[in-house]
């Protein structure tokens, strides 16, 4: 495909260029130049994405752009290229759209920071990598983006590296992600071994030629799942995301809520045919998602950091998406991804606005009653909270309901009900902890200090305008995917050619479908009501009573996963590493010394014979002669 559309290939390049300009000439750039450059780069990307989106309106054929030959090794050769289909273009819109808003927001949020150009360098780098990730036509290029976003994330989490915790968090995120990357690498190896290519489309096509549910395809699926859990902070690799909140809040909004963490979902959706062929792997995905959703929701209950609540919420919501892809409801997952991007970004930006207003305060216990001081922030945050809680007619309602319905209707007979219940409970919990979050910040008593009050101010328009825009989407986005059984569903139709919605679902009676809708509304309502009762009516007293219980402590610490990993993975690894270092120093190195000592002994033995006495030398000669004769005699006898 040629023409204007081909320029879309430049989208990542533009972002990269923005990153390079900020990186190389950062010192020369005066504020707000870095932000402007970064925003322009992303804005251009948005324009290009829209062009691509438009061009794909009429066509189901993906847009393929070949860049250049990258590798060529034996059986498989690989050119870098973009494969832009309806799925990717949707992702691109999210990335550049939400990305643009967050860039603009950041101009305000980060104003005055010394590392501004470094900040935008990282942000643009991230956008570039993320675009590459979603546009890639091969696993390899996707992996390039995959690692690229990881690096962007690393750079931005550790943006304020002077504090040890921040650097530690960045390090943790990087390492945990790297574990997932091992899965990605191994998956690629297995794919090459099996299919002889890394082209995603080709692999998807070829996957169905294998035996259904065979070990190989299941293996690939599980390895890809490992990769996805790393990037998307799912069990068992979810531990890095709460810590990642150490980064600037817009970063959390963009990377750790809207885009990067959804890469795992995207990966599985991208390889939908393959997963459809690997039921075991798919089931694993679903279970991972459901359990993560539940556990993260639990953990979210006990957090006191405004951002950490959101972080666990993100993990939980990603769990929903995983559950969706796990049961084969790919478009549903993408739909939730889409809506979640808006309201979660909005929540983070709202939180950022609050933090900004309070001069860096992040503890929910020292907030409250801010709704009347920060009207725009409060209102938009309320919308987002309602959206994520699944209140009807807001975006989150539609997408979450679709997930619940599809899980219930999925063919995982028996298990589907359990999964459904788990997710339903999680949904209710979501509503509960989100209201805890909202009430804690915006309603109730003002618990912040007087010093903070003096400085209290609503954020400047450059920050609030993005909030408003996101709020609009948080409401509107849901209408792209109204329940299928009753309404036209644009997003399902749009994604159909890209994700193979072939996975079959039962189609129960419409009445049952309505019951399911009612149940999810009820879940939201229960959560909401409980949240209202506990935090608004009782002023948090029931929670306070639980306050220091063991369960609460456990939940606050992310249900002990960190401690568990420290004990089971980190400490043994460190022990092993120390042990090996010791072995290296004491055994292998000593071995060399030992050999030298042996040579020294031999040398001494050789010189010992040299006694200095001529008569002894003569004896040696005579003995030598006898040796000669003996050797000859014995060899003669032997032969």
């Amino acid at each position: 495909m040629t023409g204007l559309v081909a320029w879309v290939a430049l989208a990542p390049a533009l972002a990269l260029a923005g990153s390079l300009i900020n990186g190389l000439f950062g010192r020369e750039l005066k504020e707000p130049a870095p932000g402007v450059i970064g925003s322009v780069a992303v804005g251009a990307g948005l324009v290009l994405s829209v062009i691509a989106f438009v061009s794909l309106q009429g066509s189901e054929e993906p847009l393929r752009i070949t860049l250049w030959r990258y590798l060529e090794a034996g059986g498989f050769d690989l050119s870098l290229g973009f494969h832009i289909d309806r799925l990717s273009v949707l992702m691109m819109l999210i990335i550049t759209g939400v990305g643009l808003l967050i860039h603009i927001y950041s101009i305000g949020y980060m104003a005055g920071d010394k590392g501004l150009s470094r900040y935008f360098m990282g942000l643009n780098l991230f956008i570039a990598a993320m675009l590459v990730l979603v546009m890639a036509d091969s696993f390899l290029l996707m992996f390039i983006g995959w690692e690229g976003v990881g690096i962007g994330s690393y750079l931005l989490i550790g943006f304020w590296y002077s504090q040890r915790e921040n650097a530690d968090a960045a390090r943790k995120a990087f390492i945990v992600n790297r574990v997932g990357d091992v899965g990605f690498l191994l998956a690629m190896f297995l794919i090459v071994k099996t299919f002889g290519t890394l082209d995603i489309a080709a692999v998807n096509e070829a996957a169905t030629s294998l035996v259904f549910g065979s070990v190989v395809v299941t293996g690939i699926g599980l390895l890809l799942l490992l990769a996805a859990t790393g990037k998307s902070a799912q069990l068992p690799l979810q531990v890095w995301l709460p810590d990642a909140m150490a980064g600037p809040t817009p970063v959390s909004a963009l990377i750790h809520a809207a885009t990067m963490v959804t890469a795992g979902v995207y990966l599985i959706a991208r390889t939908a045919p393959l997963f459809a062929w690997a039921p075991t792997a798919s089931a694993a995905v679903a279970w991972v998602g459901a359990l993560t959703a539940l556990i993260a929701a639990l953990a979210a209950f006990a957090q006191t950091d405004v951002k950490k609540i959101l972080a666990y919420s993100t993990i939980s919501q990603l769990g929903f998406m995983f559950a969706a892809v796990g049961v084969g409801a790919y478009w549903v997952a993408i739909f939730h991804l889409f809506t979640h991007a808006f309201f979660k970004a909005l929540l983070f930006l709202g939180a950022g606005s609050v933090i900004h207003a309070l001069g860096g305060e992040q503890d929910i216990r020292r907030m409250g009653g801010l709704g009347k001081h920060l009207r725009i922030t409060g209102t938009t945050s309320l919308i987002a909270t309602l959206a994520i809680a699944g209140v009807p007619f807001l975006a989150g309602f539609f997408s979450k309901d679709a997930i619940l319905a599809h899980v219930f209707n999925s063919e995982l007979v028996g298990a589907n009900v359990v999964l459904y219940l788990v997710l339903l409970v999680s949904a209710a919990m979501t509503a509960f902890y989100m209201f805890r979050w909202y009430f804690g910040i915006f309603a109730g008593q003002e618990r912040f200090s007087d010093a903070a009050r003096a400085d209290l101010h609503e954020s400047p328009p450059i920050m609030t305008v993005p909030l408003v825009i996101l709020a609009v989407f948080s409401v509107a986005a849901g209408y792209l995917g109204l329940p299928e059984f009753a309404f036209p569903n644009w997003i399902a139709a749009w994604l159909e050619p890209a994700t193979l919605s072939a996975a079959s679902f039962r189609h129960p009676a419409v009445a049952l479908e309505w019951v399911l809708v009612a149940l999810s509304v009820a879940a939201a309502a229960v959560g909401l009501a409980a949240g209202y009762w506990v935090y608004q009516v009782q002023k948090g007293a029931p929670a306070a009573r639980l306050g220091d219980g063991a369960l609460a402590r456990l939940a606050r610490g992310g249900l002990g996963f960190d401690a568990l990993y420290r004990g089971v993975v980190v400490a043994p690894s460190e022990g092993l590493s120390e042990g090996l270092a010791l072995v290296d120093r004491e055994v292998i190195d000593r071995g060399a010394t030992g050999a030298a000592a042996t040579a020294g002994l031999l040398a001494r033995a050789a010189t010992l014979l040299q006694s200095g006495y001529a008569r002894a030398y003569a004896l040696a000669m005579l003995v030598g002669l006898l040796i000669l004769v003996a050797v000859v005699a014995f060899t003669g006898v032997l032969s």
Partner: protein
Amino acid sequence: MLTFLILAVVAIVGAVGVITLRQPVHAALSLVGTLLTLAVTYVTLEAHFLAAIQVIVYAGAIMVLFLFVIMLLNVQGDEPQPSLGWLRPAAYLVGVLAAAAIALTALLDPRQLPAAEVIQAALQGGNAGQVGEAIFTDFVLAFQLVGVLLLTGIIGAVSLVQRGAAETPEAEPASEAELTHA
């Protein structure tokens, strides 16, 4: 056979004397005895010319030289204090083994001695003329080289001894390298 045995015993006794007698002069004289016995043995082996040479050159000239040096250096016997005590038994052991090896090999393939006439015809008693012919035909190069060898020996011996006590060692420091830094 009896002659041989007597000669052999005398020769061996003389040889043992060389390696056992304490006084160097006695040892040297014991060797002279062996050498003379060997000269007689040569005669029994139809080598008259060599027998004569053995007496004149070896037992005569060479041994006189030895005795002269023994006197000159006033050589005493072996030092009384033992050193390398282990060497003696080892030497005997090795010696026995070596002698056994040579003797066994020699006895392995006994050969018939040619008839006396054949020996007589070939060696004609090993007179000077006969040997001389061999020396000036087969060994003409060797004969020349013997000359070179003797020349070398003379030059060598002279150069060693001639410097004699006249040579004064150069006065030089024990070590020319001075330690500059410890």
